[in-house]
């Protein structure tokens, strides 16, 4: 990992937190659907990131969001679960470590179906944990499930759009 990659990820970390708390948290479609686009940071961490770093960075990311929304621990818990799942998802959908092209997961390097599978499954894991931890009540199981599905769709759409916007011409 070069120092440029580290720097880039640092900038992305703060930029995504600012974007989330200042703009995206104020968006609500149909009353209660809103995107948690900041998890894009966890998706874009380089393949070579040490596993402990993955967990700690995700914890810090969630905590950063939590400080602004006064839900200490909520986003952090969901992010840590997502970071934990990341290596398993990657090894499941790739044929081996040597088959991964490039430093970071991207639509351009890994292809459409790989990246879709990767982002949808991790975003779903994150949103599922986040929404159910927030509600913490089984009585609202189905209405929460609908919210998970709608918000995940929204988040994944934003991720795909930014993949096309920012990463399609790199290198």
């Amino acid at each position, binding site marked *: 990992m070069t120092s440029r990659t580290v720097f880039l990820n640092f900038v992305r970390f703060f930029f995504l937190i600012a974007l989330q*708390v*200042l703009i995206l*948290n*104020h*968006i*609500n479609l*149909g*009353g*209660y*659907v*809103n995107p948690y686009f900041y998890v894009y940071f966890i998706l874009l961490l380089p393949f070579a990131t040490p*596993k*402990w770093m993955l*967990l*700690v960075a995700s*914890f810090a990311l*969630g905590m950063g969001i939590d*400080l*602004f*929304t*006064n*839900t*200490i*621990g*909520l986003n*952090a*818990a969901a992010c*840590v*679960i997502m*970071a*934990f799942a990341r*290596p398993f998802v990657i090894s499941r959908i790739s044929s081996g470590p040597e088959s991964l092209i490039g430093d970071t997961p991207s639509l351009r390097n890994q292809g459409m179906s790989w990246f879709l599978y990767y982002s949808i499954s991790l975003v779903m894991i994150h949103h599922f944990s986040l*929404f159910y*931890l*927030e*509600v913490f*009540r089984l009585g*609202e199981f189905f*209405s*929460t499930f609908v*919210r998970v599905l709608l918000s995940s769709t929204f988040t994944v759409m934003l991720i795909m759009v930014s993949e096309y916007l920012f990463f399609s011409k790199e290198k």
Partner: protein
Amino acid sequence: MRNLFLFLRKQYFYILFLLLEVLSLVLLFNYNEFQGSALYSLSSGFTGSVNAIFSNITEYFSLRATNKVLVEEMAKVHSRMPEAFYKNDTATFFRKDPLLIMEFKYISAKVISNSTNKRNNFLMINKGRLHGIENHMGVIIGNRIVGQVVSVSTHFSWIMSMLNKDSRISGKFKKNNQLVNVEWNGGSYRTGQIREIPKHIVMVKGDTIITSGNSDIFPEGFLIGTVSGFTIAQDENFNFGNILFSTDFNSLGYVEVIVDLMRMEKEKLKTSFKTQ
């Protein structure tokens, strides 16, 4: 011992995961229990001022609308003046007492962060302990209710909106004073739910629900909403229904916090009865 270290090294990913996850959950559940925790006052200073700066910028976009609301609010405040007083009917017995003693005071404050899209929604306002705000005070906008204060720092207050699973407002039908509980079960931020309506009460669409004054949080008579639909339960003792909130939670600019000047007296009365 060596085996233990080997084990730790081999499984560190799982162990670190468990540690961080447990830490998050402990923070989450402890924090929710003790709203005024140290972590909150540490963070609210910084995040509060970031929110304040952002709100200062976005405020300009809604100046015209805010002005209109303010003028309307002024008219309402003027017309509400007599209601802010405690009517002292005992004048015939205590001739020296003044006829009117102030019971409620209203502190206006600006909303600097707000949400309607979560299952549990909160607002932050730009006034706090310094301005006399305390926990459990009610928050209104005009003559419509917003929520209650759940945490106070020096310059900011954290308000649990009615759009929260822990929010329960004691309301009543304006037409016949029948008590109901008002809750919000998620979904659209425009509609809330009323429960525990006795079977014999005849409801009509459009019935007004106001605060009952039974809780110590809101005085009587503030608007909660109007009945938009109801279900006659067959096998239970109570009916339930939906209401359209009078408050538009998505466009809160300036709100007012209710200070009950006689709260100490009321609480003292309650506890003195308990200790007897």
